[in-house]
């Protein structure tokens, strides 16, 4: 091992794309993700966001945790791990799932790639090796952390398929959502999945680290006509809020990391009840989830359509239009002004009485204005979390 690399001078690892990302990263603004550095903003967050919504954006998602599950009991193991039933999963299919602890509290979510009956890969945002290994007790499986042996790019945007098509990736337009396959991209063997974090048409490209630079370069090949941009974490945050995707340790605390027990959330509170299959014989947290379902959630993560144009970042939510008699009933976990929807959107927790669609709540927004705060009492309407959901996302064949 190169000791220089892990010395105090270079505490963060560089992804296989670093040569290119550092060239693009005009702002030199890095984000720490799982021990790697990835760009927070390359030049302008808004511009990068615009590329993802209008042409295509490229995001380095290599630091994502990747686990290889192999063995005779691989499917059984995953069925014990996650709350959803994947008994009928086919090869080349991707499943989205969450896993909970014994109290039915969500630890993390991830995508599960089925390579074949006895071979799966799980991609997730947080470290989970310990949890997976303990869950695997009694199963004939091997679990390996393969995070550093796969380089990954998210290629998201309405023209993503068109550009892959121009790059002569054969038959890419017929790849169904939540499926993946092996393709040839400019002589490189890559795996492409039709998955993503943007709520729009998009792909994730998985390759060997040695091919990383070539894969990166090829995606920018048609930039004279289609302005593909490298997009940073800030712009990814924007598209994921619009798409209504939630993130552990941002919208909820992972049950493995929360220190205060009342900060943990169950799937019903996160609006992920559809991922829980209580008919399944056994999975971790089943008994607790039966009780949670019976009781109904005390609070719930909902979408909020906020009045005005000032984002309600970190706002506390209240029940009354009159500030002096208002009671606290929730909190905003993520908020932004959505350029594409031209509306002020937010995701937040509201109490039982208010999570019905159409309910009215009020956010106290502290809007910074030149070293002073403007306090705004904004009316919010409870709506579906999925603010942006373009039909392009699921169309087959994909838009070229």
């Amino acid at each position, binding site marked *: 091992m190169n000791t220089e690399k892990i010395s105090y001078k270079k505490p963060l690892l560089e992804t296989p794309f670093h040569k290119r990302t550092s060239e693009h990263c005009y702002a030199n603004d890095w984000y720490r993700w799982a021990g790697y550095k990835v760009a927070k903003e390359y030049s302008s967050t808004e511009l990068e966001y615009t590329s993802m919504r209008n042409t295509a954006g490229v995001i380095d998602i290599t630091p994502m945790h990747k686990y290889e599950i192999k063995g005779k009991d691989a499917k*059984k193991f995953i069925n*014990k791990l996650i709350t959803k039933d994947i008994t009928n999963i086919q090869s080349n299919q991707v499943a989205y799932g969450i896993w909970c*602890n*014994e*109290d039915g509290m969500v630890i993390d979510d991830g995508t599960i790639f089925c390579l074949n009956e006895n071979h799966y890969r799980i991609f997730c945002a947080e470290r989970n090796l310990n*949890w997976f290994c*303990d*869950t695997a*007790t*009694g*199963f004939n499986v091997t679990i390996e952390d393969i995070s550093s042996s796969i380089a990954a790019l998210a290629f998201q945007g309405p023209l993503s398929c068109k550009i892959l098509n121009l790059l002569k990736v054969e038959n890419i337009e017929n790849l169904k959502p939540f499926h993946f396959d092996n393709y040839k991209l400019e002589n490189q063997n890559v795996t492409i999945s039709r998955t993503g974090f943007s709520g729009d048409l998009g792909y994730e490209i998985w390759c060997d680290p040695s091919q990383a630079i070539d894969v990166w370069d090829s995606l920018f090949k048609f930039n004279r006509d289609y302005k593909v941009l490298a997009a940073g974490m800030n712009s990814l945050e924007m598209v994921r809020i619009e798409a209504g995707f939630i993130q552990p340790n941002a919208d909820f605390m992972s049950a493995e990391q929360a220190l205060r027990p009342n900060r943990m959330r169950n799937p019903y509170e996160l609006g992920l009840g559809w991922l829980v299959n209580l008919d399944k*014989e*056994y999975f*971790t*947290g*089943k*008994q607790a989830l039966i009780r949670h379902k019976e009781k109904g959630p005390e609070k719930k993560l909902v979408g909020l359509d906020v009045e005005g144009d000032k984002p309600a970042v970190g706002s506390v939510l209240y029940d009354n239009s009159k500030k002096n008699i208002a009671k606290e009933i929730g909190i905003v976990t993520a908020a932004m002004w959505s350029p594409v929807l031209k509306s002020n959107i937010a995701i937040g927790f509201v109490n039982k009485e208010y999570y019905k669609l159409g309910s009215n709540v009020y956010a106290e927004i502290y809007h910074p204005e030149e070293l002073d705060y403007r306090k705004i009492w904004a009316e919010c309407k409870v709506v579906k979390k999925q603010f942006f959901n373009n039909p392009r996302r699921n169309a087959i064949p994909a838009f070229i």
Partner: protein
Amino acid sequence: MKKFDVIIIGGGHNGLVASSYLAKKGKKVLVIEKNEHVGGLAEYANSLSCISPIIKKELNINIPNIKDTDYIISLEDNQNHTILEDKNGKLSFVKTNADEDDQKTFLSIINNYKLFSKTLGSFMYQKPPRVKSGKRSDLFQLMSMGWKIRKLGKKNMRELLRVIGLNIADDLEDNLNNDNLKGLLSHESVLGSNLGPRSPGSILTLLYKQAINDNIFNLKKIEVTNYINQLEDCCKKNTVEIIKSSQVKKIVTKNNSVTGIQLNNNEVIESKCVMSNADPKTTYLNLLGAEILDTDFIRRIKNFRNKGNVAKLELVLENEINIKNIDKKMYGKFIYAPNIKYIEHAFNANKYNHYSKNPCLEFYVNDNTLSANIYYVPYLINASHQENEIIEKCVAVLNKFIPDMKIRQQKLITPNQMEEKYNISGGHWHHGDLEIDQLLMMRPFYGSSQYSTPVNGLYLCSAGTHPGGGLTGINGLNAAKKIIEDLK
């Protein structure tokens, strides 16, 4: 197809006690024992004085005490042995190299410990409260436990709370000068547990063992085989069915409820209620299977400390055993743990999974046979013991006190062999360390206390449950009560 109200896995003494109680209440009970005879680990015990008087009375078990007077001999390298006499639980010095002040302090320390352990002892017959259950009975029990400690009086309560987390070496070094006496008491506190004299909590272990045994020096008072035979008779009288030489392969469950058991010959016996007398790790990981247990629960099972570290050596010599400098009338329980440092050094090896080159010994002598507990000989994972070397080291220690040993027969039982023979994972006497985080409502671990398990209809009654090992039978009694309460 035979059907039973309760199936008990393992015919250890706790299983037999539980089955007798259940059968007395009119339940149809089946006991399945792996070995050819019942009793399990009880036959292994050198010392046995602790069978609960309530069980003796209620099950009509009548066993006479072997003798009223017993001796504890703490051996010393210079042959200045300390001999203590135990007359119906009252201790006095027969011979010692300690000065009078030390003798007095020693006895007063023991009296103090006795007082504390009595308080702990009063928790034994109760199922420990579940703190977060929200039930009034649990809350009441918790309060009554607190009240019992408070009832010791201000001074004694403070003293108990001071020593409860303390290590035995600190307390003894504060009060005693004589190395031999310090070694003797430290030995009693660490024997059979994964602690050294300087490990925090070793006093609690001593108090707890004392509470179980009703005696600080666990002396042999009754015949084990006699006790087991009477228990077995008691079971038969109450029409308990006992199948011997038959091993359970799996506990069969459906939808988180027990439906029966499967034997090694694949025969399935149905029952809605199964009680396991196997240790918690074996019960959960081997018999039930980790696949149907929550991951957090599996973590707790794996973290349950159950590494045994005592080996047993049986020696048969050519001629009668004579121990230097000791009158034959005073033969009793011999202990070789000359000082705290010696024990602590022996414990050091144990930390790194090695046997101690200078082991501590506890042994009994009878004519030409000698039976010794050697510690520390740790349980090894995926490795085997160098048995001859262990015996050699042990004989070297014995040679100091028994000159001209001519060995005719020798047999060593290591924790690994105990695991295999009695099906106790880790080969631990008490199925798990008796330490503060593995006692009362935390025994064996959170989520499995009060003899119940996360699976409906599955119960535990082994030494791995409250109040722990030590051949009290209380585990079986409490577990049977719990089942009777639940089946109502």
